[in-house]
């Protein structure tokens, strides 16, 4: 579940999923998969045993795989976790296009699901009973994995957004925690004035971050209906975002540091990057990446775009999927369900993962967990509330990985030149439309 959507390779070598992949896997799976697979069939497969290969970098799966093998001694889970993000997708797409070496279970982030499901790279899990699990998950993640009556994966984790802020810095300069983005802008000015080396946040243009903020602001730039898509960044929500963010850029209130770099971790640690609006999975990264700032940071609800508005959004998050070319789909599904809907969930939450299941999010034990890193704060309460306030009608493009890969070529200009954000978003829109048309989508303007 990584969210550096801005990195180059981020996109995917779906390359030939299309060209050769379709010939390799097209047709065959669609029909065969529609017949229902009973729980008995799955149990029989578990009893019979076999090997499955799982490509997933989510660290808590290691324990889950071990537990699963203990429970079903005849099943051997081969967990491959060294690859993440772009490298993972490149390998997955290459395997799919070659029709060989495809894993039985693959982690796929929500924003990339559309591309794989559209190209028939993934199995529909509804016949295995996944459609009956809908009520277990919060709406955001479920909306991401399902498409009509088809289910392309089970949500593994989610990233309801929160505002992490460095309390030490805020206290030092007597800045109040902003509850709206306007207050956030004021806080940014006040902080940078008090300490020219300190910034309210870092941002050099990050597709995942920007789309999440647009989502929160109520903008719905992407409309997707099968192969018909519409892309339009000219709506009220986008305007709200542009207004505030353009000021932050123009007044040089954002640290010119890219996320997930060495400098970024340093900035989070030394107080020069004072807030971070991101997914609720962030605490684990704080602990391992910014150990020297233990006790300084706190979590808060996202600032609102309009006073009193509670709307939140998702940032990051991923699912486990069963590729269409999996050789052992029953076992693959059994593992997926165990990890993301069954006993595995508790194990994973215990190890610090942020769940996508309602039961865990609402459990008292989860909500009252005290985070040493946040000075004993019960941060999960904030995250759970955010999860409940995520608007579920957002959709990504079926070629979002490509769109994200060119974000910095277009919108990025607004951060380093005279181009405005609005112009940048327009350029992004045009480039995305052009690509969509080239790929045979019907693009409405």
């Amino acid at each position, binding site marked *: *579940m*990584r*969210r*550096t959507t801005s*990195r180059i390779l981020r996109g995917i*070598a779906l*390359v*030939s999923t299309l060209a*050769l992949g379709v010939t390799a896997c097209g047709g065959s799976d669609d029909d065969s998969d529609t017949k229902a697979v009973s729980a008995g069939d799955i149990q029989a497969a578990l009893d019979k045993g076999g090997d499955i290969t799982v*490509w997933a*970098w*989510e*660290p*808590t799966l290691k324990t889950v795989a071990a537990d699963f093998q203990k429970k079903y001694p005849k099943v051997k889970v081969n967990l*491959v*976790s*060294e*690859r*993440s*993000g772009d*490298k993972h997708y*490149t*390998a997955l797409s*290459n*395997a799919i*296009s*070659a*029709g*060989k*070496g495809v894993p039985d279970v693959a982690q796929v982030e929500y924003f990339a699901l559309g591309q794989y499901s559209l190209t028939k790279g993934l199995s529909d899990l509804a016949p295995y009973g996944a459609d009956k699990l809908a009520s277990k998950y919060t709406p955001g993640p479920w909306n991401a994995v399902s498409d009509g009556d088809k289910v392309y994966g089970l949500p593994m*984790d989610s990233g309801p957004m929160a505002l992490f802020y460095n309390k030490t810095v805020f206290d030092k300069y007597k800045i109040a925690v902003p509850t709206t983005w306007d207050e956030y802008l004021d806080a940014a000015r006040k902080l940078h004035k008090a300490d020219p080396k300190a910034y309210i946040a870092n941002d050099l243009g990050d597709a995942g971050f920007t789309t999440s903020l647009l989502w929160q602001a109520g903008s719905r730039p992407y409309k997707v209906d099968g192969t018909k898509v519409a892309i339009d960044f000219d709506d009220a929500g986008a305007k709200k975002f542009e207004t505030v963010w353009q000021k932050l850029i123009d007044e040089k209130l954002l640290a010119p540091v890219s996320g*997930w770099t*060495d400098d970024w*971790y*340093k900035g989070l*640690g*030394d107080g020069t990057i004072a807030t971070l609006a991101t*997914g609720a*999975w*962030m605490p*684990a*990264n704080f602990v*391992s*990446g*910014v*150990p*020297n700032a233990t006790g300084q940071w706190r979590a808060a609800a996202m600032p609102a775009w309009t006073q009193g508005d509670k709307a939140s959004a998702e940032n*990051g998050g991923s699912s486990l999927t069963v590729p269409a070319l999996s050789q052992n789909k029953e076992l693959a599904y059994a593992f997926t369900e165990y990890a993301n809907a069954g006993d595995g969930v508790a194990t994973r939450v215990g*190890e*610090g*993962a*942020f769940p996508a299941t309602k039961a865990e999010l609402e459990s008292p034990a989860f909500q009252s967990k005290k985070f040493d890193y946040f000075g004993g704060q019960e941060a999960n309460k904030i995250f759970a509330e955010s999860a409940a306030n995520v608007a579920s009608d957002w959709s990504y493009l079926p070629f979002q990985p490509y769109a994200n890969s060119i974000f910095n070529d277009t919108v990025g200009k607004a951060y380093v030149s005279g181009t405005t954000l609005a112009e940048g978003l327009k350029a992004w829109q045009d480039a995305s439309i052009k690509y969509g048309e080239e790929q045979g989508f019907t693009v409405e303007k």
Partner: protein
Amino acid sequence: MSTSVTASPAKSTGPKLRTPRKKHTPGKPKRNVLLTALMALMVLYTVVPLIWLVINSTKTQAGLADSNGLWLAHDFALWDNIRDTFTYHDGIFGRWLLNTLLYVVLGAGGATLLAVLGGYALAKFAFPGKRAIFAVVIGAVAVPGTALAVPTFLMFSKMGLTDTPWAVIIPSLVSPFGLYLMWVFAAEAIPTELLEAARMDGASEVRTFFQVALPLLAPGIVTVLLFTTVATWNNYFLPLIMLKDPNWYPLTLGLSAWSSQAQTIGGDVIFNLVITGSLLTILPLIAAFLFLQKYWQSGLAAGSVKE
């Protein structure tokens, strides 16, 4: 280009050179302090990044975050880092090291062998298609390799080679520069008369090659071996495409995987191990260069054929 290039040494050493000077024997020219100082600047440029690497491999993740990059942190954790590098994730770094060695032995070794044979053929035989070969080699090298990655991957996949060491080793077997170097070297180092003499004596071509040519080629072979070793050791893009099983990763790919852990959720941020691992990755090569210095320098210099 030569004029622009040579302009600046004239500035630095010019005065000395132009004044009439005592004749010295060519073997013992006068040492020049200014020139040495200039070279020292060049060395500084060369080593500063390396010094950064060494200094930072002594720091913990916390130390990295709150200390100046070109100075030691309060903690000295080099030994801990080295130990952690080798024990992290069940010691997979060691496995990557062994993989890299395997790729170097078979890949670079094989590349050298092919280059030696090919270079010998180009230098000492006339055969149909000879003129075309190098033109084709240079031409093919000019096509961007990244774009060939996917076609190559698909071909290899059909042959069942992907995700095996062969997928890395086979493409490493071609070293156009090695071929060129051996061609030139063989042309200079092996007197054609020697070959003719061996053939007169009734030696087969294979025997002539091994008994007459090969010993003469030794310095060149070491040189090519060193170049192909570097290429294989530092190979990154190809394994990235070809390998899915991390157990077959070479060091470069493994380090990059560790580095991108900082970008995953709950992923351990281990820049300290990435840096220490980088240092450990380049040390063996540097050691090889130092220890084999005598051989490859004479090989490159083709000194053996000096009249």
